[in-house]
C-alpha cells in the first residue's frame, strides 16, 4: 500500500477542513482499503470519519426513512425502524458481503464508492432517495454518474440517505459466490404514482429499467420485455446475454416477493 497520512477528525467541519490535495474519506474501509492494497487507489491523506458523531442514526421522519451515512450494514439489517418502514432494505443489507464485512461496511461508503455491482445503489435509485451532504442534497436520479463516479464534489461528505417509504419494496440478486457482489441485482419499489426499477451489476453503473417500470406501472401490469441495452457487462463471470437474462429473473423474484 502506498503510504499516506491518516486524519481522525472529531467533527464534520474538521473532516471537511482536513480534505486538501490528494485526499479521500474513509468510512468502513471495506472497499477503499482493498482498492488501496491492490494499488488501484493511492492518496496522500486519508480522513477517517469514524469519530465524527451523529452520522449513524437510523430514524423515521414522515414518509422518509433516514439512514446515517456511517450506519453499518449489520446495523441496517438489524434495525427495527428499517424493518418496520422498508423490510426489503433490511434484507438487502443482510445480504451484503459476509458477517465480518457487514460489521464494518457502511451505507455511505458504499454509495460514495458506487461500485457498479454494489447492492445499495439499486435500492437508493429505486426508492427515489435524497442524499444529504455537507454541501446540500442530491436526488438519487442525479447522484450515480457512471462506474465509481458520483455527483459528490471534492471534499463533499455524504451525511445521510433519505429513503422515500414505498407501498412495497423488494431486492433480488444473483450473487457471485466468492465476492458476493451482484452479477445481477434488481430493486423494485411501488409508489402511488408508479413502480421504479433499478438494476445493479449488469452495466457500468446502476440504472433505471424504463421498460420494466412502464410495464409494471400499467393497470393491469403488462409483461416485461427482455432487457436490451448496448452497455451490458460481459466478462469471465457472465456474458452480456446471460446477465440480461438474469436481470429478468431477478426482477420476477423481486416482484413475487412484493406480493402480499
Amino acid at each position: 500500500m502506498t503510504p499516506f497520512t491518516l486524519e481522525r477528525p472529531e467533527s464534520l467541519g474538521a473532516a471537511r477542513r482536513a480534505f486538501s490535495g490528494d485526499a479521500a474519506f474513509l468510512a468502513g474501509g471495506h472497499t477503499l482499503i482493498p482498492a488501496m492494497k491492490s494499488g488501484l487507489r493511492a492518496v496522500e491523506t486519508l480522513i477517517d470519519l469514524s469519530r465524527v458523531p451523529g452520522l449513524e442514526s437510523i430514524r423515521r421522519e414522515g414518509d422518509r426513512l433516514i439512514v446515517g451515512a456511517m450506519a453499518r450494514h449489520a446495523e441496517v439489517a438489524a434495525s427495527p425502524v428499517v424493518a418496520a418502514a422498508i423490510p426489503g432494505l433490511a434484507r438487502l443489507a443482510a445480504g451484503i458481503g459476509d458477517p465480518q464485512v457487514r460489521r464494518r461496511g457502511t451505507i455511505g461508503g458504499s454509495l460514495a464508492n458506487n461500485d457498479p455491482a454494489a447492492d445499495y445503489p439499486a435500492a437508493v435509485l429505486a426508492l427515489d432517495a435524497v442524499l444529504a451532504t455537507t454541501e446540500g442534497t442530491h436526488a438519487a436520479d442525479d447522484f450515480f454518474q457512471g462506474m465509481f463516479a458520483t455527483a459528490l464534489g471534492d471534499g463533499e461528505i455524504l451525511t445521510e440517505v433519505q429513503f422515500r417509504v414505498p407501498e412495497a419494496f423488494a431486492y433480488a440478486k444473483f450473487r457471485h459466490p466468492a465476492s458476493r457482489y451482484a452479477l445481477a441485482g434488481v430493486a423494485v419499489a411501488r409508489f402511488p404514482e408508479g413502480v421504479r426499477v433499478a438494476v445493479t451489476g449488469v452495466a457500468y453503473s446502476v440504472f433505471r429499467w424504463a421498460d420494466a417500470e412502464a410495464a409494471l406501472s400499467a393497470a393491469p401490469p403488462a409483461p416485461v420485455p427482455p432487457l436490451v441495452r448496448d452497455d451490458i457487462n460481459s466478462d469471465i463471470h457472465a456474458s452480456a446475454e446471460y446477465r440480461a437474462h438474469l436481470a429478468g429473473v431477478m426482477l420476477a423474484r423481486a416482484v413475487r416477493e412484493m406480493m402480499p
Partner: protein
Amino acid sequence: MGISVNGSVREVTSPDHRLLVDWLRDDLGLTGTHVGCTTSQCGACNVMVDGEVVKACTVLVASCEGSEVTTIEGLGTPEALHPMQAAFKSAHGLQCGFCTPGMVMAGIAIANAHGPDVSEATVRHELEGNLCRCTGYQNIVAAIRAGARAMAEAGLLKEPA
C-alpha cells in the same frame, strides 16, 4: 493512546498505512492471527475489535487507537482453553489448522449473536466469511455448536443487546 491487545496496552509506532494484521503479527509477534487471502474473503485474520469480530487485513491499525483488540492468543492458555477452543479440539474442528484462529473467532461471534441453541443452518450461513481449504466444514460447524453450548454453561455468552 495506544491499543489494548489481549489486556495490555501497546503503543502504535508504525506508519499510518500499516494494517492491523501486519502490526499484530510482525510488530507484536502475535502470529496466531493468520494471513490467508489478504482480500477480505477468507477470515483467517479475524480478530475482535471492541468485542466485534472483523477482518484484520482490512482494518488500519491507526484506526484502532483507543480500541481493545483480542486475538486468538488472548482467548485461553494451553492449560485452560477457551470453551470454543476446547470444542474445536474435542469435535476435531480442524485439519491443517490454518483457518482455525479465524474460525474460533467467528464461532464466538456466532455464539454471542445466536445463543447456545444456534442451528446448523445458522452456523453455516454465518460462516460465509470464513474459508477452510481443507473443506472440513462438517466438524467446524459441530465444534461451533458445541462451543456455543459450552460458552453458555461457562457464563461467557454476551447478553443480547
